């Protein structure tokens, strides 16, 4: 059977490679020092989706993301690897969303997309590490969920068989479609971009990404596939009260920059004499031994 697959993906600041310049002197985050990237586990999710597309002829893969207009890049990165379409939720009304408001927006968009067989996202995003959005989307859609998936083994007779990571081991579960799956980082890595697809889609943008003076602006009239879907709160018939900041039960009370309680430390070199005297000191003090 052909499958209608939606991939949930997020553009995130690359918090894994935070250097010393990540924080400004005033204690705020220096966003310019953190490049925006495709959330790593969402790439694992995309790979699972593309494999299903190959196994089930006639299937389609659509990228669903929410963020600033620049998050159109997430859709392009999907198209470069073999996705068919995408939707960017972008609106001031979505801003400041916690996981609950985010999942409301995504679930509402999935309803609008309609007839989705399988929703696949990364287990969690590296900027928050919460792992909440997948299960919350599933709950809001009234669907089953399989989290921490390592491989979608097969889809047959309306049921997905999935191997998933659990604490201390693995298990294989069978879940009826439609189902929401979140994919663990231990799953297969995503395939690289396909050069032909990069050529085809490199100018694909959401309307809000455009300045209007692009030398290739005429292409947008000739090639409708270069205009990516961009949806506002109103476009998906969402309740504004459940979106963004107003739809978020959690509030940030305060944020503090980390200040380590500095200890008086003894500094040594890596010389033989220094290392040996340290070992002897630790042994004499019965700290090791």
């Amino acid at each position, binding site marked *: 059977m052909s499958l209608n697959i939606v991939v949930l993906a997020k553009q995130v600041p690359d918090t894994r490679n935070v250097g010393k310049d990540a924080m400004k002197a005033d204690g705020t985050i220096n966003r310019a020092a953190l490049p925006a990237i495709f959330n790593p586990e969402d790439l694992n999710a995309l790979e699972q989706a593309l494999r299903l597309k190959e196994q089930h002829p006639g299937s389609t893969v659509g990228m669903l993301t929410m963020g600033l207009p620049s998050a159109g890049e997430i859709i392009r990165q999907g198209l470069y690897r073999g996705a068919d379409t995408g939707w960017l939720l972008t609106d001031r009304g979505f801003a400041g969303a916690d996981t609950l408001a985010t999942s409301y927006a995504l679930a509402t968009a999935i309803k609008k997309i309609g007839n989705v067989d399988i929703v696949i996202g990364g287990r969690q995003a590296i900027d928050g590490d919460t792992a909440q959005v997948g299960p919350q989307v599933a709950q809001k859609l009234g669907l089953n969920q399989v989290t921490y998936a390592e491989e979608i083994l097969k889809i047959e007779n309306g049921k997905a068989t999935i191997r998933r990571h659990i604490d201390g081991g693995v298990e294989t579960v069978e879940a009826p479609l439609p189902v929401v799956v979140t994919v663990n980082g231990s799953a297969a890595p995503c395939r690289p971009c396909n050069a032909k697809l990069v050529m085809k889609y490199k100018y694909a943008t959401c309307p809000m990404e455009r300045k209007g003076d692009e030398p290739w602006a005429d292409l947008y009239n000739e090639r409708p596939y270069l205009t990516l879907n961009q949806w506002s709160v109103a476009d998906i018939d969402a309740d504004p009260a459940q979106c963004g900041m107003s739809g978020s039960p959690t509030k940030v009370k305060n944020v503090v920059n980390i200040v380590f309680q500095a200890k008086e430390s003894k500094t040594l070199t890596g010389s033989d004499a*220094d290392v040996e005297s340290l070992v002897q000191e630790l042994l004499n003090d019965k700290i090791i031994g």
Partner: protein
Amino acid sequence: MNNVIVYCEIEGTTVAEVSQELLTKGRKLATELGVDLDAVVAGTGIKGKVEEQILPYGVDKLFVFDAEGLFPYTSAPHTDILVNLFKEENPQICLMGATVIGRDLGPRVSSSLTSGLTADCTELEIGDYDDVRTKQHYDNLLYQIRPAFGGNIVATIVNPEHRPQMATVRSGVMQKALYEGKAKGEVVYPEVAKYVPETDFVVKVLDRHVEAAKHNLKGAAIVVAGGYGVGSKEAFDQLFVLAKELHGEVGASRAAVDAGWVDHDRQVGQTGVTVHPKVYIACGISGQIQHIAGMQDAGIIISINTDPDAPINKIADYVIVGSVEEVVPKLIKYYKQNSK
């Protein structure tokens, strides 16, 4: 009503250690708030086997849901147990382990009840909150404290309006202790079918392999941990040699795990294992707060780093400025020479 409730996770008929740690924390929060500590556990054939693993931590009322199909865990039945129980009991705080189960169940429950959930908290406290926008004052909220944004900041999260205030906490972050005060210790066995419709049992677990932990990193007295600065898989293997000599365990930062030098289950930090060793030897670890959150209680911290200004050096007792590749073999050599 208005109590603190802890979801207790099980493997077969054994209650998870993280749940007992949360019962201990939950007891303190409940006492501070002047309310009861409740607990809920769901499984198959657990009646008479789990109560004594839960009640001694100061539980006033324990709800035991025992029926076919509740073990192994699947999302829907456990979600409905909590959602329907919470509608009756209206707890103000719900705690669960930030385990695979807790992180599958917590968000599903929070979404059903439209209540806020904070993942992977490293501290939980009770305090007041003033909403600057609405000018409203709230007493006795749960402060859910966690590193955020790649560990560069620590955020305190509150849920002013919605109940329960939900939080997950990793194993080892809180310390378990039997309760010395007097708790009511009541146990009830609700009828599962009243909480869980038959349609919840649609996801089938076909096959399941759980192995006992391969190491005891969490309880190790000496931890030799490596980060990205170790430089290579070969150099990382030297840490195992040193750990073996010292009768310790090997830990790692996320960067070393991401580099593929060591298994994920050895990751120390907010999203990994929290350790409380006597000695922590940090090799080539710069010291992001998420990592430090998992090892800051170590007795003696030794940092080996080429960068004398690495953040971790600020909390270290000994700083060896040098490369891991060079220093670790020397530590092994001089330990062998001097320990006999």
